[in-house]
């Protein structure tokens, strides 16, 4: 095996440390931090496994991967478990999985594969759109607006990076026109969240409550944070802070300095991804890296944006930090893919 970048492992370990630390303070349930530690350990094992094969060999399993993803989404509809008004999980006795999380990485792989093939742009456009739509509709239906937005942006970005610009612009125009219709399709609570985002004071006890409390928490962290006297976090003013609102705990305890450190860790991760993007010759590999880059950056922006009141409330986890098995594993798989592409960056001409 070729040399893997050690500093990257250090960054992942730092993020994991922040995650466990924040969970420990936000939740009265100590089991949560222990569980997350277990997920992270499994994540590192996955990271190791991800380095055992050349990413190019994934091309041979592409349809299997794609249809496994679709099957899992169908299973959610048929036997899925509901919570918080949405049906997103499949229960497998000892743990539950969230197929929509895995679908993000599956779509990145499939779209990258389709768009990197030696075909005309129009064919690639049609095929990639056909591959994108079914999982997108399933996830929207769950309903999971957040993940739908994330995979749409991934699809959108990959079109920009791979095809003639006219396809990108036609999708952009089409999306803008269909926004009013799309809005009609949203569940009432989703619409309410968007209104609340536009004016959180409108409903300070309903969906605006979390945002107001989260902003107070983050603001009260000031420059250096209050490690011990964090009232908002320790008194649990931010509901379900351990999941989507975990950044508010980091903002309060770590202050501006702590939040900046977290952002810095992410930036290093992104700079590494750009380095991999530049160094790999293979288009399939390039697109995978772009997809993962966009996935992480969208999630980080929407999640932190939500916590500081500049993005609507959607259930998107903060990569490597929020509590959650499926999302943690997917994050490690994604970063594992990037490392794999880095390690096997030189093309060794395998016939397709």
């Amino acid at each position: 095996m070729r040399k893997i970048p050690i500093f990257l492992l250090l960054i992942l370990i730092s993020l994991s440390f922040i995650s466990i630390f924040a969970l420990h303070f936000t939740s009265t349930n100590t089991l949560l931090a222990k569980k997350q530690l277990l997920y992270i350990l499994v994540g590192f094992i996955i990271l190791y496994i991800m380095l055992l094969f050349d990413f190019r060999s994934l091309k041979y399993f592409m349809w299997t991967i794609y249809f496994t993803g679709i099957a899992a989404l169908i299973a959610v509809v048929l036997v899925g478990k509901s919570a918080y008004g949405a049906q997103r999980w499949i229960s497998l006795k000892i743990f539950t999985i969230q197929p929509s999380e895995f679908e993000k990485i599956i779509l990145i792989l499939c779209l990258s594969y389709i768009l990197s093939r030696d075909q005309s742009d129009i064919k690639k456009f049609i095929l990639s759109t056909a591959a994108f739509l079914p999982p997108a509709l399933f996830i929207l239906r769950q309903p999971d607006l957040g993940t739908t937005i994330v995979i749409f942006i991934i699809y959108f970005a990959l079109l920009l990076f791979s095809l003639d610009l006219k396809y990108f612009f036609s999708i952009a125009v089409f999306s803008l026109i269909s926004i009013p219709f799309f809005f009609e399709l949203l569940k009432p609570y989703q619409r309410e969240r968007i209104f609340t985002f536009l004016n959180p004071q409108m409903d300070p006890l309903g969906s605006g409550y979390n945002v107001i409390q989260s902003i107070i928490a983050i603001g009260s962290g000031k420059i250096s944070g209050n490690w011990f006297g964090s009232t908002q976090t320790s008194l649990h003013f931010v509901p379900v802070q351990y999941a989507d609102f975990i950044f508010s705990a980091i903002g309060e305890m770590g202050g501006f300095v702590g939040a900046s450190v977290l952002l810095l860790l992410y930036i290093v991760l992104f700079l590494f991804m750009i380095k991999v993007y530049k160094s790999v010759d293979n288009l399939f590999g390039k697109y995978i890296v772009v997809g993962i880059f966009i996935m992480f950056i969208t999630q980080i922006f929407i999640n932190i944006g939500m916590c500081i009141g500049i993005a609507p409330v959607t259930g998107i986890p903060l990569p490597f930090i929020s509590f959650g098995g499926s999302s943690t594993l997917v994050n490690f798989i994604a970063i594992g893919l990037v490392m794999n592409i880095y390690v096997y960056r030189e093309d060794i001409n395998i016939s397709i």
Partner: protein
Amino acid sequence: MKKLSEESKEKLLYIIIIMLTVILLSRLLYLQVLKGDSYLAQSKYNSIRIADLQPVRGKILDRNGVVLVENLPSYDLEIVIEDIKDKDKELTFLSSVIEMEKQDIENIIEKANLPVYAHIKIKRGLTEKEVIQIKEHSFELPGITVSTTSERYYQFENIAAPIIGFIGPVTKEDLEKDSFYNLDYLTGKQGIEAQYEKLLRGEKGKEVVQVDASGRIRDVLYSMPSKPGNDIYLTIDIRLQKELEAIIGDRKGVAVAIDPNNGEILAMVSHPSFDPNLFVSGISQEALDKLYAENAFINRAIQGQYPPGSTFKPITLISALNEKIIAAKTVIYCENSIIVGNRRFKDWIYPSAFGYQNPVQAIANSSDVFFYTVGLKTGVEKIAKYAKLFGLGDKTWVDLPTENTGLVPTAQWKQENIGENWYPGDTANLSIGQGYLLVTPLQMAIMYSGIAKNGTEYTPHFFLKAVSQEGSIIEEFTASILRKIDINSEILDTVKNGMEALADKPDMKILSAYGGDVCAKTGTAEVGETEVNHWLIAFAPREEPEIVGLLLFERSDFPSSHSLAPLMSDLLKKYFSIKSK
């Protein structure tokens, strides 16, 4: 168009990172560095507390807009126990002002078990004198406050109380069933107050306040005022209601005045009743027990179940005529009594006898022997069928929460409930409205409005309209037909002829004093060995009837049912004189 160059794609990735960083960091700078102190203060004082703002309950008015029930300001005494300096001294003073034992005050405080700095209500409805005394000494009484709230006031006290009902503290079930209610809320318990609770109560407001660690309000962050409830207009005319209350007087009884053309109840008296204001200011156990003993909380017009006596005879006649057992011209010779089974059934005029009677004379004279004879020929099943056709044994669906159905007995019913066979003697009793038969006064009023309107009965009701505080009509009543009974109008004419002939009798003639013709039927129903209830039901005018009046006296001390005629005459006169004003 063309593709992005490799160079610009790489640039784009950098630009995305820079944008993300700039946007997030600048917002964090703003929140944490610029506004950090303010947010830190907010979190220190956190937290946001929610207070409900209770809406003002809607008024209840009569059909002409006379206010029956309204809200008056009321002063409540409250204590914040944490603010009290010298508990012993203050409570001693307080107990002398508000006439409450010091121990009782302490018990209330102990039982309240509210969070710290909560206001504990000690006494509602302070008198003005008490308020002034407490305010004068407010410096010596830290922690003791007088709060102003509103209190339900029932303008006419006992009058129409069984219809209007009253409000009282919410129950555990109310709290579980309906998120509107809080522990200290009041809700409609009886009558219109209960029936139209949702229209009357309004919508809660919300106030979001920021309180410090000890729970005191620092700042109002958000306030949505409550929306007052709707005013409800009733079909009642308070002038007629008062007249009917006067007619019933101190006796136990019922009076109903209803418009047969739409079911609007213009007045309904059930006596004895109660003063709903007693529930607002608090009622002693003794007074409450007395009211319970008098059945004051029963609305006799819809919950009382009585034998109808002779007022039932039109049903017996209608069933015999419609089933062609007899004809309108049939004449029956009535002895002073008849033998049914091995028992002698006497006419009420016994030892005299009515002799030859046709149906019209039989109704006018209320000859028992005539109806025994006809009823036995017709049979229990058919009589019961027509009784039910006119709505006996079923709810009238009047818009009040509790209504009884009465009972129309049949052979099957007797077998199932008493375990005996139905005997001819039971049929004889049923034919004259005695025996197992039970009716509510309102059922009888509706039955007679059905006769008056040639078979059409309207659902009786009190609700006229609900009007919001801005003056727009929220809900309005529309008359609804309860039943359309398919009976030949000639048959009903025969009944009306009998009723008119009764009203023309010398001792009943006074009924026409209002200036038109009247159809009337009296009834004397035996209850127990020696006591009777007296009925008089009338409608007027005969053609195009406008009013059905009903009087019922429980365990009556009138010499006969005909003695009610002057009272019914008053009812009709008042109705027509009020109408012409």
